[in-house]
């Protein structure tokens, strides 16, 4: 009977190692997705001109795994005291149990940076200006400056 328990645990540890391997493969695929194919997009043709979009790519990933196992012995002293006499007669060998679980998550962010333009005249790079980001940056800076100047003026009084 104890051998059965051992084989069960072995099977579960195999499942865990397989699960971890699958997760590592997923991470590798996830990290590869942020590689050169994502930074330099597929060329877009328009007549004699071909455009290659470029982007900044940020990827983040994390996961967690946990497992636990336990043995229930009905003939143990502390258990016997709580069990009724009928249950004592039916009590059999110790039963084992185990469980595992895991979870993970990831995030990918990309932002266009520039366009690589190839024409019969040659190759050139045209930058992409994100006006929304610049407006947000300006408003944040002005808000911070006004707040800090107000604090300084109150402090000087």
């Amino acid at each position, binding site marked *: 009977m104890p051998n059965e328990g051992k084989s069960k645990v072995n099977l579960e540890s195999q499942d865990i190692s397989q699960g971890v391997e699958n997760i590592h493969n997923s991470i590798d695929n996830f990290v590869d997705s942020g590689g050169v194919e994502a930074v*330099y997009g597929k060329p877009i043709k328009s007549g004699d001109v071909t455009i290659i979009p470029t982007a900044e790519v940020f990827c983040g990933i994390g996961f967690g795994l946990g497992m636990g196992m336990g043995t229930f012995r009905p003939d143990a002293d502390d258990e016997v005291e709580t069990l009724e006499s009928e249950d004592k007669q039916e009590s059999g060998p110790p039963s084992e149990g185990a469980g595992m679980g895991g979870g993970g998550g990831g995030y990918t962010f990309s932002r266009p940076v520039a366009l690589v333009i190839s024409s019969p005249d040659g190759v050139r790079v045209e930058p992409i200006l994100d006006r929304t980001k610049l407006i947000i940056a300006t408003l944040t800076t002005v808000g911070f400056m006004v707040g800090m100047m107000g604090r300084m003026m109150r402090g000087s009084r």
Partner: protein
Amino acid sequence: MSSRLQFETRAGKPIVIGKNRIIPFYQSVGVNMPQINGGVVWNRPVSVLAVNADGEESVIPVIDVTRRLQIAIFGSGLCILVLTWLLSKIMHKERR
């Protein structure tokens, strides 16, 4: 608490467009954190090596104008704030 930091510049596969050949280069920064079973990767374009029909090579940098302007806005804001603080200190001393 050792975290593995990777910082490297990589070259992509050459792209042939007509008579031009473009080799893209990108910078990759990766942080692997085995303690927390995770990591982050940040890739950004650096430059392209363009080879024309005559075999002339030219390296064209890929400049992130938005990022540079963002840094300039935050930097100038910080400089103005520090200057204002210094001026207010000087004026406060002169009044005394």
